[in-house]
């Protein structure tokens, strides 16, 4: 039915028409079995604490708040980009700082994480990690997962996504309903750094007892990790 309406609009040359734009937006949704599974895992939790590491979307926050969650939001990718820009500016101003600062990926990751993800241990029931590990430097990705593991309570859940091949565009995700995500194309914040293989993902989340993956046609693997 939807395809028919789409084709009719295309045939009539309705490009640019508000209905066309609405249809385009609607097309950028994807069914998410991972989200469905996450909600199933959180069902009956009552007032839980959730950490959203993507951008603060009205729909995502509303979705979880309406279900009784206390949501904490921290856009890690934007934070990382800002951190890199700040460090670059600092080094431009004070060239001698390069000698005092550890500029290895590990050193930068430690400095970044000293400013980010500052929450009490075991304070979250769920973490929305989205696909951000693909965009972080591998060292930082590893340390981020380690930090998240500390923040998650036992039996807590992480919802992550991994690209099966290097993504062409840059997209962010938000919750549309209990089993649908919306993909929002945005300007690139950080270029993709790595395509993780299954073995590497298992190693990253080695401290988690359960891992459940859903592979979809759009080369995106949705994975749930239960601590």
């Amino acid at each position, binding site marked *: 039915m939807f395809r028919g309406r789409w084709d009719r609009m295309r045939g009539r040359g309705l490009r640019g028409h508000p209905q066309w734009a609405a249809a385009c937006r609607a097309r950028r949704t994807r069914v998410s079995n991972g989200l469905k599974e996450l909600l199933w895992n959180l069902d009956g939790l009552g007032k839980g604490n959730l950490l959203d590491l993507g951008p*603060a979307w*009205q729909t995502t926050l509303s979705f979880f708040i309406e279900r009784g969650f206390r949501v904490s*939001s921290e856009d890690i990718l934007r934070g990382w980009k800002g951190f890199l820009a700040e460090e670059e500016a600092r080094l431009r101003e004070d060239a001698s700082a390069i000698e005092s600062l550890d500029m290895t990926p590990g050193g930068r990751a430690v400095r970044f994480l000293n400013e980010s993800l500052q929450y009490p241990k075991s304070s979250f029931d769920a973490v929305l990690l989205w696909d951000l590990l693909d965009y972080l430097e591998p060292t930082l990705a590893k340390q981020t997962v380690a930090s998240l593991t500390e923040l998650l309570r036992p039996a807590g859940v992480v919802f992550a996504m991994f690209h099966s091949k290097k993504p062409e565009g840059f997209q962010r995700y938000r919750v549309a309903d209990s089993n649908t995500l919306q993909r929002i194309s945005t300007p690139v914040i950080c270029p993709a750094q790595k395509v993780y293989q299954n073995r590497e993902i298992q190693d990253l989340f080695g401290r988690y007892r359960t891992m459940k993956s859903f592979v979809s046609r759009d080369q995106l693997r949705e994975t749930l990790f239960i601590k």
Partner: protein
Amino acid sequence: MWKKEDAKPQGAVDNVATPAPAPASKASAATPASIPLSSSALPVSSRTPACISQGIRIKGEVTGSEDLFVDGLVDGKLNLTNGSLTIGPNGTVKADVYAREVIVRGKVEGKVTGREKVQLWSTGQVLGEVQTDRLAIEEGALLKGKVEAGKQPAKPSETKAAVAVATTKTSDTAALSSGTAAG
């Protein structure tokens, strides 16, 4: 004939009727064009919201019950019991903020409490906790911290009073409204 007065130019009548102005008034009369300009630039109405404009820096506590627009820097505490607080695109607030409604178009570092509503515009940045009844976030806004939206449970003393007054009323735990902003 009795309409002669009406036929006269208005300015001429005024000149005749008014006494000779003082020297200071003479100067202002010499530049009549500047009068309307300056009067339009100044907020003359008492209902115009108070403004901490760009370039002004306040360190300390700001309290009141009227609307306030902040486009400068406030470092301390901001408490508008019944007013609306707008943090403009150039505004930076390093403070815990409490108001009936908070609109963030600039930067806030601290706890933001909007009794009725908090709006985060696309240029808005909040680094801290947000607590409100209704939250609206526009695409592009930055939020780093905890969000608690929806009607908060009443304080124990308030609950007791409410129970005593109206036992039939149930507490409303309304969910967060979708708001007007995109996202």
